């Protein structure tokens, strides 16, 4: 899988800096698990972050406190080294089509076929993340050949395709591709015929559906 649609550099920077909302961060991590291009971007953003940390002024810590922290560090230099986690076996995992990307496991479990979809509208199903913070993190399943309601986004939305595909004014989105959208985009995705489109999406703020669908959908999904 070599994605064609990537994360926006501003999203990469926020992720690398640790300032991206946690829901958006889960979708970013999902994309990074299949995209070497964006992993390199994150790495570059981390270099910039390292440089900024290195160049900034030091925090003021009063002298006695600084000394006691220093002494505590010297004492800890003999601490046992904690074991590193085993290197994940990405190849074996990605070979199994039923296995969800690892960053999604805490929220949706490890298996695609075990997902408990909830009806949302004809041909549209949704699962909200088991736990999340202030924003929304959810998976969507949209029947093949279906047109989604026209909508824009109050703030930022990230959507990563896991299976199937859709097209909108921005292009064709296939597995591995991520759509990195903000409020400037009004779009109406249409899924391709053949297979349902399954994606994971995160929002910083509520979706804005125009018209009757807003009343119908928003209470259902709680977006």
């Amino acid at each position, binding site marked *: 899988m070599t994605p064609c649609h990537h994360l926006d550099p501003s999203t990469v920077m926020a992720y690398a800096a640790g300032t991206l909302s946690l829901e958006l961060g889960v979708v970013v991590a999902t994309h990074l698990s299949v995209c070497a291009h964006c992993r390199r971007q994150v790495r570059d953003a981390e270099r910039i972050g390292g440089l900024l940390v290195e160049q900034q002024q030091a925090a003021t810590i009063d002298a006695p406190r600084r000394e006691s922290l220093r002494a505590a560090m010297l004492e800890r230099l003999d601490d046992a080294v904690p074991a590193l*986690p085993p290197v994940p076996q990405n190849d074996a995992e990605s070979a199994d089509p039923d296995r969800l990307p690892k960053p999604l496991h805490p929220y949706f479990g490890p298996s695609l076929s075990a997902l408990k979809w909830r009806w949302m509208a004809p041909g549209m199903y949704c699962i909200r993340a088991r736990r999340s913070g202030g924003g929304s993190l959810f998976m969507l399943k949209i029947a093949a050949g279906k047109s989604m309601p026209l909508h824009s986004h109050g703030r930022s939305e990230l959507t990563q395709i896991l299976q199937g595909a859709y097209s909108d004014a921005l292009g064709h989105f296939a597995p591995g591709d991520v759509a990195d959208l903000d409020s400037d985009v009004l779009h109406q995705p249409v899924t391709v015929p053949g297979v349902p489109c399954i994606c994971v999406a995160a929002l910083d703020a509520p979706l804005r559906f125009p018209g009757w669908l807003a009343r119908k959908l928003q209470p259902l999904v709680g977006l």
Partner: protein
Amino acid sequence: MTADAATGSTSPFEATRIVSTPTPQARDPRDWTSEMLSVARARDRECFMRIYDYFMPRLCLYLRGLGAAEMIAEELAQEALLRLWQRADMYDPSRSRLSTWLFRIARNLHIDRVRREPNWIQVLDEPERMDMDDESGVATSAESYAEHVDLKSRIDKLPAIQARLIRMSYFEAKSHQEIADELGMPLGTVKSSLRRAFLKLQGDVRGTP
């Protein structure tokens, strides 16, 4: 935020640093490669504490910017530096500048901690190990001292708003939307300014014009 006085825009060491192999003598405080190699090879505590003294208060400031309370920031900075000591044998200067590695460890510790707060469970074991980097085997001379100096001057030369957004993006626990609200700019403008700034700086960190 300004770089402190130790940062010169030029360095007399620049020419030699690129060609020479690191030696354990005291060097420009901006290049920690030799200290780190002494830590890795000889478990040199003095070298480690020099790194500690420099980075500890700087990591604290970064972590406070991300929203960590003062005590927590100190705790996480201590932990990050301890990891550096414990994992020193993994340090490979051809792969990563020390500050990049330390930044990544501190950031990950912070994210893990936030995720462990009541509503969150841990999501990722983000790699802090270099052997999992994509660029393994590719020598990143891009992180040499000289190019880092260029990057610093490149940040200084960014349009003021881009430089400000870069610093806000890295040092404040604010989303792009919150930054947009604070500066009275449309979200799209915040993102596109950051995008332009990143693409300019990226040329530098990758060592290409």
